[in-house]
């Protein structure tokens, strides 16, 4: 018995010693040498890295609210990472042994794990009831989405824009967004319907997201109805996470749809582009609120329309988010020595093109060009909502608006946590030296930048994309349609001629 104990102690000691090495090399940068979640990288992260000390509060668990996570829970977070956060997946980077060792080391930061009265016990989860994508299941799911109050934080349409959203903070007083339920690929605990159900049952401890398990005990709803909520939430996101396609094809249409909600847009292909924080130039920005843009484009013989849609929790400028902005600034270390005062900034969208279509592979610097190679931009702001300002950017901190009437027009709609903006302009340009003339048949570089004023974003604090392409599809020439018909008619004619000749000969022989 004593031997076994000694052996166990030795094995555990080895675990944590080996775990310490792994931890110091791979984890301490964000989670801190002492596990307090205060590593060098922590100053640039929202949500911040987990603090492993104290009473060990973890979001992603299979256990009841307030209980510790199981080893399997912790290992899952290490293996898969936490989507939508800075925590990467370690399964392919560390060996099985290394991950087990570091798990043991992480648990040693808190005495809670060695308290035998707190031994975690996973909840017994039921399996998903069938028919989860049927209209009836989704109707029931939506009914309980409303009755259990999901919309209070996640919003009526699930984009994280509920009335309580601006007040949300975690246990450490850091600002926290209610998840945008249309982006299940960014859910911290996974995006499957099972993952969603489990989060409803366990809650996300340390965050405002509560456990809904008590509702079943209180007979407020049944387990199946809770599953329906999960299935409804799952249905808000696409079946598969969006994939980047580099070239936006703008088909030729007879008329331009200027209104963002014009039904003509429904038949146009949509392209998704991820945006990331601008971390190249000071003031850098590590916590962008806009995670991507959905783009559609069409053109007529003389004009082009771009429809850019992005999710944004707030219709900025909005003073009700000022406290939230204050928390954002307090959490993130700015490059400036003095912390900026929160203000009600507007939302902004920038669509960027080169000044002229490049002939080769050479393009201006993607991040707003340079002094020698400027870029042509449309800058739309929610403060004005109308026509964007066209101008030339010569680097991130220099923008020269262009005078003249050939700038783009815009129509914008803000609807339940989403901006939908249609930008239109004539293909031709009166000022070809600085305002890009759009042409068919050539790939036109395009990039997108967006900022959410209610997340403290303005100036260089924004979300950015790299260069992608816009292609104005050429009108299909008439010969494309006529040639096959002509060829068919010719073939038919020749065939009939052959048959006719053969019949002539046959009847001639018979007569003979």
């Amino acid at each position, binding site marked *: 018995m004593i031997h076994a104990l000694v052996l166990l102690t030795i094995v555990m000691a080895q675990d944590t010693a080996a775990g310490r090495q792994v931890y110091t090399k791979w984890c301490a940068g964000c989670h801190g040498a002492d596990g307090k979640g205060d590593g060098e990288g922590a100053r640039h992260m929202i949500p911040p890295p987990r603090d492993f000390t*104290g*009473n060990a*509060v973890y979001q992603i668990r299979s256990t009841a*609210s*307030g*209980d510790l996570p199981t080893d399997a829970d912790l290992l899952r977070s290490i293996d898969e990472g936490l989507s939508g956060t800075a925590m990467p997946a370690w399964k392919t980077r560390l060996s099985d042994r290394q991950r087990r060792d570091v798990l043991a080391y992480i648990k040693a930061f808190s005495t809670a794990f060695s308290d035998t*009265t*707190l031994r975690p016990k996973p909840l017994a989860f039921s399996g998903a009831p069938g028919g989860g994508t049927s209209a009836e299941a989704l109707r029931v799911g939506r009914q309980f989405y409303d*009755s*259990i*109050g999901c919309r*209070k*934080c996640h919003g009526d349409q699930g984009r994280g824009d509920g*009335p*309580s959203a601006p*007040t*949300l903070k975690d*246990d450490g007083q850091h600002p926290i967004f209610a998840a945008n339920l249309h982006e299940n690929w960014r859910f911290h605990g996974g995006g499957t319907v099972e993952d969603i159900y489990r989060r409803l049952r366990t*809650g*996300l*401890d*340390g*965050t*405002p*997201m*509560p*456990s*809904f*398990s*008590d*509702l079943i005990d*209180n007979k*407020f709803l049944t387990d199946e109805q809770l599953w329906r909520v999960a299935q409804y939430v799952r249905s808000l996101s696409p079946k598969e996470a969006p994939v980047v396609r580099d070239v936006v094809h703008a088909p030729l249409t007879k008329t331009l749809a200027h209104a963002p909600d014009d039904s003509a847009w429904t038949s146009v292909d949509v392209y998704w582009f991820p945006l990331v924080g601008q971390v190249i130039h000071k003031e850098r920005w590590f916590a962008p609120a806009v995670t991507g843009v959905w783009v559609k484009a069409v053109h007529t013989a003389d004009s082009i329309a771009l429809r850019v849609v992005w999710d944004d929790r707030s219709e900025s400028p909005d003073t009700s988010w000022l406290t939230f902005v204050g928390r954002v600034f307090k959490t993130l270390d700015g490059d400036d020595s003095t912390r900026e005062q929160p203000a009600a900034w507007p939302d902004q969208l920038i669509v960027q093109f080169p000044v002229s279509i490049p002939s080769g592979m050479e393009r201006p610097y993607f991040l707003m060009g340079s002094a020698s190679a400027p870029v042509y931009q449309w800058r739309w702001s929610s403060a004005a909502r109308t026509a964007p300002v066209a101008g030339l950017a010569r680097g991130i901190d220099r923008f020269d608006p262009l005078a003249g009437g050939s700038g783009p027009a815009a129509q914008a709609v803000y609807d339940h946590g989403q901006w939908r903006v249609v930008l239109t302009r004539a293909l031709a340009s009166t000022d070809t030296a600085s305002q890009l003339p759009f042409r068919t048949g050539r790939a036109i570089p395009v990039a997108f930048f967006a900022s959410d004023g209610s997340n403290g974003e303005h100036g260089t604090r924004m979300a950015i994309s790299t260069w992608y392409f816009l292609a104005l599809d050429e009108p299909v020439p008439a010969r494309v349609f006529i040639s096959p018909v002509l060829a068919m008619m010719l073939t038919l004619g020749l065939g009939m001629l052959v048959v006719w000749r053969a019949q002539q000969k046959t009847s001639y022989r018979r007569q003979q």
Partner: protein
Amino acid sequence: MNGRIFSVVGGMFLLTVCSKGDRSSVQAAPPAAQPAAPAGDVSAAGGTITGKIKFTGTAPRNPAIDMSEEAACKAKYPTTPTEENVVAGPANVLANVFVYVKSGVPVGQTFPAPATPVVLDQNGCRYHPHVLGIMVGQPLEIQNSDPVLHNIKAIAKANRPFNVSQPGAGMKTTRTFSAPEVMVNLECNVHGWMHAYAGVRPDPFYAVTGPDGSFSIKGLPPGTYTIEAWHEKFGTQTATVTIAGTESKTANFTFAAH
């Protein structure tokens, strides 16, 4: 010898505390708590500490609560409700102060948790009471009297935190705390203005001041005690009080409002 006296007196006290409660409270108590001392036929005894809490200066104005998102809660108030950060009475008396014996209770002496729950009600999108005392292992019954979603999040260091939801009127959730902690913060994230504070103690020697700013801690065995008064905005103050026998001592506190 002193220890024995304490345990006898403590035991007598326990009898009185438990007389109302159900005996199952002993089972509900955490493993650390020992069952009450053998029953004696001595009635309630011990000293009492009473006092009044006041403050100097001008109390900060409690912010008005915008309940426009919750018509059902808003309807419960004739005028615009406010937060309850500083609840003061005439002559600058201070309510919602948690007063407790911070030290002096003999180490090792344990007190079983009453089975009678402390009720925390969510009514009109505010907590009732705003400040409460509860013993380790004693049930905290959280109930919702509003037909709206509340989540109840406990932020604790010595205890396990939790976060549960009550989307409808009539819902009840019972929780217990396993360790002493002053204070466990309770909050609702749906309604950012909702805060309550629970003082969790291993013994029954605590009180919360009422609207008249007064408190009374009864049944203290003889000894010298450090009394702490805690207020959510004004911080803490301590005083030392010595109790000999069944006397009543006074400990008044005055906070400074800035």
